């Protein structure tokens, strides 16, 4: 199974909408070759599965690159317990584990800014290299209470990096941990409510290059409520990130969130997204700093069963420049 996203991006106007899309929206009107995303799955035994997601795509250098975005070996005992090891999406909030690189699956064009991938300027540890455990709590048939516990390398301690996800080398012994829980109540099919708590201890003095500051304790809390029916899609998420340099008084707080509403009318699916990201200035470990907020309005047209055209208008305000408008098109399909 695979998909191609963004085969054609034609921003009519992009004044200031520098990071509305993913990958980054170009400064000039451009036809843009998109990501070519391949998903491999294999059932090794009754309880053991392998999954890999390999993405080929060009960057703003115009060179094509190849990334192994996910690969994980998963052991699933039953619905109450599963374990997985490898490189996966961290269970922060909802969007991050619900949508990956295959843009055909997502209604809107591009991820919310708060969930941008690390190599596109995102500040959240979207990817994790480590282990994840999950399952449904027995005898919660009415609420379907699920739990997730993860441990991994966390992001590198110094930014920017060519690759901030620590795939092989870790600049510290401290490991990041993440716990999450959600419910899918029986009484309303399609409703999911959940939250997560992520903790890490970054050590910029041990990074490459080293930055002479004390350890940074990072906490990320998220909460969300989403609802999906055959017609409606309603997603609401909020994340609070705190980076606290040891022995200093106040942490750097970053608040972010978005709401997205969509309704299907046959092959047409108009949608609206409003997003807000307010990253603390002078944060020692964040690449993206400042305030970004504004609405996006768009239309997804499912031209064929496995091909969709998306038209999206963004009106994004940034603290560092004037408000900007951007119009993006995307043709996404899977095969």
């Amino acid at each position: 199974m695979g998909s191609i996203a963004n085969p054609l991006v034609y921003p009519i106007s992009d004044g200031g909408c520098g990071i509305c899309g993913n990958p980054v929206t170009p400064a000039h009107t451009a036809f843009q070759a998109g990501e070519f995303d391949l998903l491999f799955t294999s059932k090794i035994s009754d309880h053991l599965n392998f999954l890999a997601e390999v993405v080929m795509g060009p960057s703003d250098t115009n060179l094509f690159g190849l990334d192994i975005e996910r690969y994980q070996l998963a052991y699933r005992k039953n619905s109450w317990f599963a374990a997985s090891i490898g490189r996966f999406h961290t269970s922060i909030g909802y969007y991050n584990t619900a949508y990956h690189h295959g843009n055909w699956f997502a209604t809107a064009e591009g991820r919310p800014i708060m969930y941008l991938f690390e190599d596109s300027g995102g500040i959240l540890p979207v990817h994790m290299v480590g282990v994840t455990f999950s399952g449904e709590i027995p005898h919660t048939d009415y609420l379907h209470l699920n739990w997730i516990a993860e441990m991994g390398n966390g992001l590198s301690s110094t930014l920017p990096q060519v690759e901030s996800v620590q795939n092989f080398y870790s600049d510290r012994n401290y490991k990041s941990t993440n716990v999450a829980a959600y419910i899918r109540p029986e009484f309303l099919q399609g409703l999911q409510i959940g939250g997560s708590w992520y903790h890490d201890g970054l050590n910029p003095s041990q990074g490459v290059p080293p930055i002479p500051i004390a350890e940074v304790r990072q906490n990320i809390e998220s909460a969300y409520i989403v609802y999906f029916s055959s017609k409606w899609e309603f997603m609401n998420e909020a994340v609070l990130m705190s980076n606290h340099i040891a022995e200093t008084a106040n942490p750097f707080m970053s608040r972010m969130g978005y709401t997205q509403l969509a309704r299907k009318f046959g092959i047409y699916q108009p949608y609206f997204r409003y997003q807000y990201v307010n990253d603390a200035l002078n944060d020692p470990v964040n690449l993206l700093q400042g305030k970004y907020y504004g609405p996006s309005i768009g239309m997804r047209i499912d031209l064929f069963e496995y091909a969709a055209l998306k038209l999206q208008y963004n009106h994004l305000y940034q603290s560092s420049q004037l408000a900007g408008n951007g119009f993006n098109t995307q043709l996404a399909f899977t095969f």
Partner: protein
Amino acid sequence: MTTLRVTLLTLIACAVLSAQCLAGGMAVIVNKTNTTESLSMAQLRKLILGDVRTWPDKQPVMLVSREPSSDLFKCLLSSIIRMNDAEYHRYILSSEFRGGEPLAVRTVNSGAVAAKIIAALGGSMAVVSANELPALGGTVRVVRVNGKEPGEAGYPL
């Protein structure tokens, strides 16, 4: 009052039409060793969508499905899953993309073939035309839905 009555009658008519999307209705069949006696509509939906992958007795679920072009499959989508064909495929693909285990499905072209497979495989299940049940000769077991058997008043399929 008249408006309310008309609305109620319309809703009842819609429900009846939905339940009768296949002449004679549908039935859920499983292997005889399967200990599940009855399924709710919500449980049935989750089994077909792959949201639930094991039976209470820990056997893995394997779906035996009629071909997508069949009236039975279309009826199953509209009355149980409440999705159209495209939405159903997007849901299944999306689940796999999120890391879910690939759904184990065997596609067949008749209830008789489905019954043969189910009789041989412990955790398998299928939704077949209720009209085909007499011909299956007791090789499989029919599971009640919402506590009702096919043909019984209030049976939802």
